[in-house]
């Protein structure tokens, strides 16, 4: 019995339930928001250390043996994602205290936040494909409510697009799960992987692979399925934006990584090209969309799309090194992107707007905030020695090794375009003087999202920003030990026999070892070479 695998899911559910019991008590809910997320962070750290020692940890819910019950599996990828969830959860717990208006707190902001974290953690840990769907829905319903909390016109309009497209993705996912069960007769992912290798290859497997790619592609906001994201992410309160930006799309990316390395590893032979060019177009359209914008959060939203491209590029190249680079990009992006949204919240508090044209002079006014933005923004663009540089470096190297020169070249060019957007924000918000007509009164009166006066408690906003900026810096400085973990993830994902063995036991994996994906991949490449005259 390894409780640390189940706890990251159970704890936020528990905090959410306790928070609900104190529906009328605002101080109690705020206390639980911080305390619950501190415990979640500690548990996620525990899980990470345990997985670092053991490689794989599984737990069978209700003690039903593996292919029949629901299995929770923590491999290195899951453990890293859970650790990041813990970090972002804690940062958001503290940041929300200062930014959430009373109107939002009264209508269950904190219970919903816990529920969202439970959904995210569940999706990262489950080893059952239908259970993955359920966690996706838990996460989505919480995010729907958080997105519309407050009920402004922009939120409603954004929410309709967000809800419709995400529900469409869910139905495609559910349909694919149903058809998958009809084809292989199992819902346990390790068991499916095993049966998939044995099953004869009719066209069904390829159709299913594409359905999963489209469903997770919508959730990950990949080209050409990303339009819901920039239409909705800038509408809710800033803490919600930051939470969504950090975690939600990454659950889609994680699912792509999981499903395409474990279940559909044999279809990668020809889906690879589609995925590669999808990734490249995601990068390019995202970064071009951002270049046209002059609203702080909208620029950042388009950059989420652009960065998703790098992660999917890692999967599409499909070598252990590229996967390691892709996961490095996920890790770096979760920290940096959340931080940029948090900074946009502080600048909004200070100057009362998200429009770049109306802002200015913050470098003189708040030099340390400018430094925190500088670190995060340049990390996003991939300037050494920050975290983004190493993510990009590994991906580019893997790209050249896989001889995908055009795609890699475009990835490098997109880095420059990212820098352009970040410099634009820097110039407009921090460097230029505040426009004459927008001079704020000497002591700006801070208000919450519902317009009520708040106590000037800016340290709660600064603390997560400073810590996350430091993390981005430290990931850059200590890139080597992190890269070791990433390489382990790459190896684990590319040899699914380890995962299958951990879930189903040693006898099953002996069969799986016969069908090592790298060999199959090599065979496919050979086939292709023979086909070309």
């Amino acid at each position, binding site marked *: 019995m390894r409780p640390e695998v189940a706890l990251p899911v159970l704890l936020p559910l528990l905090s959410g339930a306790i928070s609900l019991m104190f529906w009328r008590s605002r101080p109690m809910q705020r206390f639980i928001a911080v305390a619950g997320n501190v415990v979640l962070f500690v548990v996620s750290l525990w899980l990470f250390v345990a997985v670092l020692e053991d490689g794989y940890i599984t737990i069978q819910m209700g003690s039903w043996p593996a292919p029949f019950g629901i299995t929770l599996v923590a491999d290195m990828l899951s453990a890293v994602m859970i650790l990041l969830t813990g970090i972002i959860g804690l940062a958001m717990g503290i940041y929300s205290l200062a930014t959430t208006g009373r109107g939002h707190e009264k209508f269950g902001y904190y219970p919903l936040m816990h529920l969202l974290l439970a959904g995210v953690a569940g999706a990262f840990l489950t080893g059952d494909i239908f259970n993955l769907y359920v966690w996706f829905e838990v996460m989505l*319903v919480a995010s729907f409510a958080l997105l519309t909390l407050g009920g402004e016109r922009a939120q409603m309009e954004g929410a309709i697009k967000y809800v419709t497209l995400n*529900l469409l993705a869910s*139905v495609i996912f*559910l349909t694919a799960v149903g*058809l998958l*069960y009809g084809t292989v007769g199992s819902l346990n992912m390790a068991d499916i992987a095993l049966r998939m290798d044995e099953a004869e290859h009719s066209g069904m497997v390829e159709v299913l692979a594409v359905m999963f790619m489209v469903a997770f592609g919508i959730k990950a906001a990949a080209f050409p399925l990303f339009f819901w994201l920039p239409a909705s992410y800038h509408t809710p309160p800033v803490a919600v934006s930051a939470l969504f930006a950090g975690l939600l799309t990454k659950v889609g990316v994680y699912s792509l990584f999981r499903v395409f390395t474990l279940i559909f590893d044999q279809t990668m032979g020809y889906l690879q090209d589609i995925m590669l060019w999808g990734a490249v177009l995601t990068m390019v359209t995202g970064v071009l969309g951002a270049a046209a914008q002059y609203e702080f959060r909208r620029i950042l939203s388009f950059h989420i799309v652009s960065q998703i491209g790098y992660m999917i590029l890692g999967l599409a190249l499909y070598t252990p090194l590229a996967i390691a680079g892709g996961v490095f990009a996920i890790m770096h992006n979760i920290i940096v992107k959340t931080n940029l949204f948090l900074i946009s919240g502080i600048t909004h508090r200070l100057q009362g707007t998200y429009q770049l044209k109306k802002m200015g002079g913050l470098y003189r006014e708040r030099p340390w905030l400018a430094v925190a933005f500088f670190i995060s923004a340049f990390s996003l663009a991939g300037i050494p020695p920050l975290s983004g540089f190493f993510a990009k470096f590994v991906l580019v190297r893997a790209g050249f090794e896989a001889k995908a020169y055009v795609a890699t070249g475009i990835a490098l060019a997109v880095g420059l375009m990212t820098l352009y957007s970040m410099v634009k924000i820097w110039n407009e918000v921090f460097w230029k003087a505040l426009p004459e007509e927008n001079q704020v009164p000497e002591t700006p009166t801070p208000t919450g999202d519902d317009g009520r006066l708040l106590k000037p408690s800016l340290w709660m906003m600064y603390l997560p920003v400073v810590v996350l900026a430091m993390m981005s810096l430290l990931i850059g400085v200590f890139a080597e030990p992190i890269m070791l973990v990433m390489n382990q993830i790459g190896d684990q994902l590319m040899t699914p026999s380890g995962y299958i063995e951990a879930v189903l036991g040693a006898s099953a994996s002996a069969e799986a070892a016969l069908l090592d994906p790298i060999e199959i991949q090599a065979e496919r490449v050979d086939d292709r070479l023979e086909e070309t005259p």
Partner: protein
Amino acid sequence: MEPLMALAIGLLYATAIFMMLRRSIVKLVIGLMLLSNAANLLIFTTAGMTRGAPPLIPEGMMQPLGDVADPLPQAVVLTAIVIAFGVLAFAVVLIRRAYEIVKADDLDKMKDTDT
């Protein structure tokens, strides 16, 4: 039975997508509703439409007598129905609020947050 179900499911998907392509938000939600129903029926059908007994093992035996139905898709469909119901309830409230605020049932009037 299966060809009939396949036809019904295909028709449901087609109707749902047609409804979702309309500009009215009410029709959009009806489309979403039909879409989840179609998916549920599909799961129900893919497992095989057998006339099996409930999968219960009689006392003192190690395996059930005769043909039994596969219980898993039914459990899955039940879960999916509950989830679809919850999400649908949210969607209905959402379009009501959106209608109150925007004062229109037309998606073309909701382009403020687009780029």
